[in-house]
C-alpha cells in the first residue's frame, strides 16, 4: 500500500481555486424546488453550512429530507427542469459557483468538487471497462493520452486496494463485487485530487464488514489529501466514526448543526432525539424498537410552523404557526431550529403527546 501511495503524484492544487483561511465551501441560504405536475416540491428551504479543508461534515436525515438534493445542487447536476435553484449562494473558495457558466462549472466538477454515489453498480456505466471509466477523468480534464491515462487508472485502482489492478483494468463493473465496485467509484472521484469530496450514502448498498472497509478507505484518502468530505447518510453508526460535525436535515431544512460528540451525547432538536432513540441497543434486547411516529411531510405540502411539529412529542401551539423556528445558537458551536431547544438539551422539555 505504501508503495502505491508514493507512485501517486499529487500535483499542486489549481491556482485559481485557493481556499481562504482553509474555507472550501460555503452554502448560504440555499433554496431548491422541483416543479412537478402534482405541484411544487420544496426540497431545500434555506440550507446553510460550510466546509473547511480536511473537515468531515455529515449530513444526516431520512429519505426525502433533501440531503441528496443538496449534494446535487453543489455538484450542479440537478435535472432542470423539473429542479430549480431558486435562492441562495454556493461559494467555492469564495466564488459563487451558481453564477458561473456551464463550461466553467464543468471544469470544477471532477478536479475541484467530486462525488461518489450510493449504488456503484448502476452508477458505473455497464458497457465500458472500469479502467476506461477512471482514465476518462484524465483524458477529458487533462488531455492525457490513452495509455498514460490507463496507467494512471491502474495506479488509482492500486491505491483503492483493488487486488490485481493491472489485470482487472479491462474488466467491466458487473465483474466486480459490491465493495470493489464502490472502490472503483471512489477511484473515479478522487482521480483528479479534488478539494471537496461528496459521498452520497457510499455504504448503503454494502454489507456491514465491507461498509467499514470503505469508510476506512475514505477516511484514509481524506487525510492523505486534506480533502473536505461531505458524507451524506441516514446511518448514525457510519457518522459516529468518521464525521467531525453533523448537520441534521428535516424536510429540506437543517434542524440542528453540532459537533458529532455533542450531538450524540445530547441532541438539541426533538428530531435528533428521536433518531438516536431509534438505534437498536444491545442492552434493550427483547423490547420493542422505538421509532419516530408518523412520516416525513410531503414536500409539496409542508405544514405551517415547524415542519416536524406533527411528529414532535413536545409540540405546542407556537410550533404549529408560521414562521418556523429559526436556526439559532443554543450552546457554544451548536445551532438548532426548535423553540424549546434549550429544554430539549437539558432534558426538561414537556411532553405534550401523552395525556
Amino acid at each position, binding site marked *: 500500500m505504501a508503495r502505491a501511495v508514493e507512485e501517486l503524484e499529487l500535483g499542486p492544487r489549481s491556482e485559481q481555486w485557493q481556499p481562504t483561511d482553509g474555507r472550501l465551501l460555503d452554502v448560504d441560504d440555499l433554496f431548491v424546488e422541483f416543479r412537478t405536475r402534482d405541484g411544487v416540491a420544496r426540497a431545500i428551504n434555506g440550507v446553510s453550512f460550510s466546509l473547511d479543508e480536511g473537515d468531515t461534515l455529515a449530513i444526516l436525515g431520512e429519505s426525502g429530507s433533501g440531503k441528496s438534493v443538496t449534494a446535487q445542487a453543489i455538484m450542479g447536476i440537478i435535472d432542470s427542469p423539473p429542479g430549480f435553484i431558486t435562492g441562495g449562494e454556493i461559494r467555492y473558495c469564495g466564488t459563487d459557483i451558481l453564477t458561473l457558466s456551464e463550461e466553467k462549472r464543468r471544469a470544477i466538477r471532477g478536479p475541484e468538487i467530486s462525488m461518489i454515489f450510493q449504488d456503484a453498480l448502476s452508477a458505473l456505466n455497464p*458497457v465500458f471497462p472500469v479502467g476506461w471509466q477512471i482514465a476518462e477523468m484524465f483524458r*477529458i480534464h487533462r488531455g492525457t493520452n490513452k495509455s498514460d491515462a490507463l496507467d494512471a487508472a491502474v495506479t488509482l485502482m492500486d491505491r483503492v486496494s483493488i487486488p490485481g489492478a493491472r489485470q482487472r483494468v479491462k474488466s467491466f463493473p*458487473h465483474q466486480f463485487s459490491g465493495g470493489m465496485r464502490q472502490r472503483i467509484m471512489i477511484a*473515479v472521484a478522487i482521480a483528479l485530487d479534488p478539494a471537496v469530496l461528496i459521498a452520497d450514502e457510499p455504504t448503503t448498498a454494502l454489507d456491514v464488514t465491507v461498509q467499514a472497509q470503505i469508510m476506512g478507505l475514505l477516511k484514509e484518502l481524506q487525510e492523505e489529501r486534506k480533502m473536505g468530505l461531505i458524507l451524506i447518510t441516514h446511518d448514525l453508526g457510519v457518522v459516529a466514526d468518521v464525521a467531525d460535525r453533523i448537520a441534521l436535515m428535516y424536510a429540506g431544512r437543517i434542524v440542528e448543526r453540532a459537533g458529532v460528540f455533542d450531538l450524540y451525547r445530547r441532541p438539541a432538536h426533538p428530531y435528533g432525539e428521536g433518531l438516536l432513540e431509534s438505534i437498536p441497543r444491545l442492552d434493550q434486547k427483547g423490547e420493542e424498537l422505538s421509532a419516530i411516529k408518523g412520516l416525513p411531510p410531503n414536500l409539496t405540502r409542508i405544514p405551517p410552523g415547524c415542519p416536524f411539529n406533527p411528529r414532535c412529542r413536545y409540540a405546542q401551539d407556537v410550533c404549529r404557526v408560521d414562521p418556523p423556528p429559526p436556526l439559532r445558537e443554543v450552546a457554544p458551536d451548536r445551532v438548532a431550529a426548535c423553540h424549546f431547544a434549550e429544554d430539549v438539551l437539558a432534558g426538561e422539555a414537556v411532553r405534550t403527546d401523552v395525556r
Partner: protein
Amino acid sequence: MGQYAIRRILQMIPVVLGTTFIIYASVFALGDPTVGRCGERACPPAYIAAFNAEYNLDKPLLVQYALYLGKLMHGDLGTSFYGNSVATELANRFPTTIKLAAIAVFFEAVIGIAAGIVAGVRKGRFIDSLVMVSTLVVISIPVFVIGTLAQLVFGIKLGWFPVTATQGTLWQLLMPGFVLAALSLAYVARLTRTSLVENLRADYVRTAKAKGLSRNRVIAVHTWRNSLIAVVTFIGLDIGGLMGGAVVTERIFNINGVGSYIFRSINQKDATAVVGAITVLVLIYLAVNLLVDLLYGVLDPRISHD
C-alpha cells in the same frame, strides 16, 4: 463465442424441421394442385396420376415430406409445377430483394436513429412532438397507401424518381426502399427516443455529469451505446423480415423480387415453389437472428456467450 454459435446452430435443426414440416403440410393440404391446369376441362386421369407420381403426391404426407427433405439436404429445392428449378428462380430474384432490403435498412437505421436521438435529447420540445406525431402518422397509414401516394407524387407529378422498378437497379429501388422502410423507420425512431430518454435518467448518466463531461459526450459516448441495444434487436429482426421480400411494395412498384415470386406461386398453387422459397427464408431468418444475438455480446459486455 464459438461454442455458443455451434450450440445455437444445433438448436436450429429442430426449428428448421418443425417449420418446414408445417409449411409443407399446410401448403400441400391446400386443395388439388391439378385443378385448373388443363384449362376449362378437368385433367385426364392419366395426367393426374403422372403429376402425382412426379411430385410424390400419391404417397402419405410423412413420406412425401421425408422425400422432400432428402432432396433439400442435397441443396435441391425441387422443380416448380411449371418445370423451372426453384433454386434458379430464387437465385434470379434474391439480388433484387437484397438490394431493396439494404436500401430500406439503410434509411431505417440512419434516419430512424437520427430522428430518435434528436427527439430524445430534446424531449418535450417542438422537435420531439414533430417526430412523435409524424411517426404516428406513418404508423397509422397502410403501406399500400404510402406506396401509391409516393408513386403518384414523386414518380408521376414531380417526376423525381422512376415510377416502377422493373429492372431492379439501385436508382429505381430508391423510392420503393424508402416506402418499405417508412413503417420500420417510424418504429426505430420511437424506440431510439424511448430508450435514450430512459437511459438519460440512469444513474451512470448522473455519474457522467458529475465527472464533468460535456452534455454531448454524456449523450454520444455514455448513453448512446446503451440505448442502441434495443434498436439493434429491432433492426436485426427487421432484416430477417425484409429478406423475405415485401409482397405489397414489390407489387406496387412491379419489382421482380422474392416477395412477388411467393405471391405469384401462391396464386398459381405452385406448392413446390412456395415451400422451397419459404424454407430458404426460414434459414435466412434464423441466421440473421443468430447474428443479432452474437452482436449483443459485442454491444453489452454483461451478456456473455460462454
